[in-house]
């Protein structure tokens, strides 16, 4: 029998249900491997003992009527997990232990899942390389000193290194899809409103969305079924009929019209990206789909729009970290002094930078020129997609403009770091679902991803298209466990 850790999530579920393996064996396998993989620095908090205990309890009295029967999972440290430390990758929450559970992780628990740990991420989800975490950089298992992407870098790293059979991340401007692309894994950002934001440390409220990160599309469909739900504790949660994503997964894409946005052809894009894209288009056509060029004329304005809207919302969402109720507090002579010192010491540079941008764009005299303008451009961007979807069923693009870069390579230039998000950001602005699947390698052997973007609430469609592409590409991640002694 192949190694437990090499099994796919849906295979683990089947084998546990058939009693071919025990939860204890599975949990132990992932914990062991996690313990050998500290060099990756994927974990911020380990919950190994509790998890093992839960696995043992399950084995004694199993309940197989669950979608994730006693399956161990580590999750991004942005989800508030009851009694398990939740830091958001920040010093300001270094010792914060929530007394409540996020809806998404509660859904996992309800379906039998076991939380084995919390995974590293860029501080408050602000970053594209997991280099802004208070708890240190994360390594990409693909190669030493390579970034795993961000902000869900710990998640993508742990997933690719098989320290967890699947995981969940959050995506505000590409934070699931870009790390998936950098590590050769699958990452899905659902339609805005599909997964509840209750209990997720908020970055940018109108952009944040939780989503599954898995080794393959089938696992992704299973995870989406578990985590997507209507939640009346979240006023932006949408009550729509969620599909049986796994059951209805099929690779038949005959007759599907797939759009290729001409504005995504960026100048100076590496040849390999272009070739990958063409490869994807060919697969679509070979399988009965139709490739149609579409126009998303306001694409170039997406990044500037994002870098106004996201920081603005973040500056307000992070105001609650003031040292009063919870979290880190620095000694101050008076209240204002305490605030200033706490926030100055508690937040890292990138977070402070974005709070300042956000405060500035909302400040008196600038609201109209920046925030209001950005909200108007946001509508133009959404309209572009609405128009395009009159002609096509889904859109195919590269996930990222390049493969993973070296740790430290982009840290001095925020703008060049922001450009990582160029293909992913417009989708968050429009609230649409999108999935990144590994589709090839660049000349260094690093993975590259393709992104399928769907209509709102049409996750089934993009899962199916991704499934089809995945079957045809048969991508293999070349991971040689370099970090394990």
């Amino acid at each position: 029998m192949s190694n437990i850790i090499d099994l796919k999530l849906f295979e683990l579920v089947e084998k546990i249900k058939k009693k071919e393996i025990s939860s204890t064996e599975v949990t132990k396998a992932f914990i062991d491997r996690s313990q050998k993989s500290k060099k990756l620095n994927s974990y911020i908090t380990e919950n190994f003992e509790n998890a093992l205990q839960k696995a043992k309890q399950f084995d004694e009295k199993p309940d197989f009527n669950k979608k994730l029967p006693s399956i161990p999972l580590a999750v991004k440290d942005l989800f508030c997990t009851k009694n398990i430390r939740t830091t958001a990758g920040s010093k300001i929450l270094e010792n914060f232990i929530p007394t409540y559970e996020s809806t998404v992780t509660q859904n996992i628990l309800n379906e039998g899942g076991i939380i084995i740990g919390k995974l590293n991420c860029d501080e408050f989800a602000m970053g594209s390389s997991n280099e802004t975490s208070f708890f240190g950089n994360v390594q990409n298992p693909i190669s030493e000193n390579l970034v795993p992407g961000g902000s869900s870098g710990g998640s993508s790293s742990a997933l690719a290194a098989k320290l967890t059979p699947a995981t969940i991340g959050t995506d505000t401007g590409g934070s699931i899809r870009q790390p998936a692309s950098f590590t050769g894994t699958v990452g899905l950002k659902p339609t805005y409103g599909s997964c509840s934001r209750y209990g997720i440390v908020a970055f940018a409220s109108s952009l944040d969305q939780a989503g599954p990160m898995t080794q393959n599309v089938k696992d992704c469909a299973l995870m989406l079924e578990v985590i997507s739900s209507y939640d009346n504790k979240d006023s932006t949660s949408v009550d729509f009929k969620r599909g049986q994503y796994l059951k209805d997964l099929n690779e038949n894409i005959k007759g599907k019209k797939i759009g290729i946005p001409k504005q995504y052809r960026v100048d100076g894009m590496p040849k390999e990206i272009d070739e990958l894209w063409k490869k994807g288009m060919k697969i679509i056509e070979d399988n009965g789909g139709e490739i149609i060029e579409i126009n998303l004329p306001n694409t170039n304005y997406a990044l500037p729009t994002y870098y106004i809207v996201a920081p603005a919302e973040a500056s307000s969402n992070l105001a609650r970290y003031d040292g009063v109720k919870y979290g880190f507090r620095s000694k101050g002579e008076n209240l204002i002094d305490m605030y200033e010192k706490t926030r100055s010491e508690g937040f890292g540079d990138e977070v402070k930078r974005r709070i300042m941008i956000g405060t500035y764009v909302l400040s008196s005299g600038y609201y109209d020129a920046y925030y209001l303008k950005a909200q108007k451009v946001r509508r133009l961007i959404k309209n572009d997609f609405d128009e395009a979807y009159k002609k096509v069923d889904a859109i195919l693009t590269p996930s990222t403009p390049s493969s993973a870069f070296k740790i430290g390579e982009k840290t001095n230039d925020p703008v060049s770091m922001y450009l990582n998000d160029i293909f992913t950001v417009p989708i968050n602005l429009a609230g649409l679902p999108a999935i990144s699947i590994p589709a090839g390698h660049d000349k260094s052997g690093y993975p590259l991803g393709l992104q399928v973007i769907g209509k709102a609430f049409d996750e089934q469609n993009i899962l199916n298209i991704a499934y089809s592409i995945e079957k045809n590409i048969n991508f293999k991640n070349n991971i040689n466990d370099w970090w394990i002694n």
Partner: protein
Amino acid sequence: MDKLSKENKEYLIKRNTNEYEVVIGLEVHAQVLSESKLFSTSPTKFGSEPNTQVSLVDAAFPGMLPVINEFCIKQAIKTGIGLNAKINKKSIFDRKNYFYADLPQGYQISQYKNPIVGEGTVTLDLPNGEKKIGIERLHLEQDAGKSIHDIDPNNTLVDLNRSGVALMEIVSKPDLRSLDEVNSYIKKLRSIMRYLGTCDGNMQEGSLRADVNVSVRKKGSKELGTRCEIKNVNSIKFMQMAIDYEANRQVDVIEEGGSIDQETRLFDTKKNETRSMRSKEDAHDYRYFPDPDLLPLELDENFINDIKKNIPELPDEKKKRFIEKFKLSPYEANILVSDIDTSKYFEEVSKNSDVKLATNWITGELFALLNEKNLEITESPISSKNLSKLINLIKKGTISGKIAKTIFELMSDGDKDPEKIVEEKGLKQQSDPKELEKIIDKIISENPKNVELYKSGKDKLFGFFVGQVMKSSGGKANPQLVNEILKKKLN
């Protein structure tokens, strides 16, 4: 909009030969009567142990989100209807960003440019007539928690029980011109909200507070002066003192050739003066933007109409009806309608007994009794039922008005039934003309000298005879009949 009669005493500040008018606008914060808070499910009850009515949302824990209370929306709409105001079908909740220890989110969810209620009017009942005060808007917002500075000498203690309770902010136009008008305005607002059950108007518990905007201008000028805002004044008396101090301060500044700085001030209740809050230059950059955790509130016609249909009779309408139906004077009607509990009591009494007597007894004897015992009318020692009975006894002639007063006093000890008291104490009025004649004849025969004096022109002596008859009958003789019969016999 000013219907002041010529005799209305104007509130003017005089210096040398200059007369200054005072222009006042009020921003009233009224706590909404509801079970749970505006965006969270914790209770709103006043006076609980600190931090026992705080939910995770109220304390702004990571990942917490607001969900709006439908009833609070209805309460705001009801109040808007009571203010004759426009109900806006679409309104938006904005974040007002600032830092303070009792503001856990670091922002208050409020409404900025698109409030739920627009322009309206409130009619003041002033001694010299009515005056309409314009309402600019009403919006919903979260209340903050409480910062307690005087328990710990080195620290401030924070209680978040109040954090998140729904507030209605009612902004008036700068139409108020005197301390009396301010008094009348606050009372009217309070009365309307108590009628509607949208706010209990309890200023001592803080469910009604106001920020006062004051400016002055030379009498006759059409331009508005620079205003100062006096924050968080919690009683009408303090409001009036603050306004008076501030108006005089501003006039002094102007008279000395200076100009008024627009600023926020506090009223020091010990020194009875306003002073500038330490100026934080950034204090007013609230960086308002629509709250991305919420969506615009869109109300349909049916929702609003359902509320309109169920609005109870409001003070102005009730006043009109009392005047028309019961033929009360505007003055009397005012007193009876200004508080909903008084109007209820009055209507109960007048349902079963004479309206004129009900009016007099309630506004006279009953109010005096309540004042003396420091009670609200809902705590009245005499029930409306028994007061009705008393009035009926007077109307039927069973007892005289004078005796009624005695009985009233006896009733107030345990809400005794007046009919029983009359029985027990034998206080029935003597109204049998034959019996009265006997007594009168006796008095006349016993006082021949006074009879002669009266017949010769000493009219005042009539009172003597009345007095004697009353004394002889133990106060029970029917005064009207006594008068009639005496007159006949003496003339």
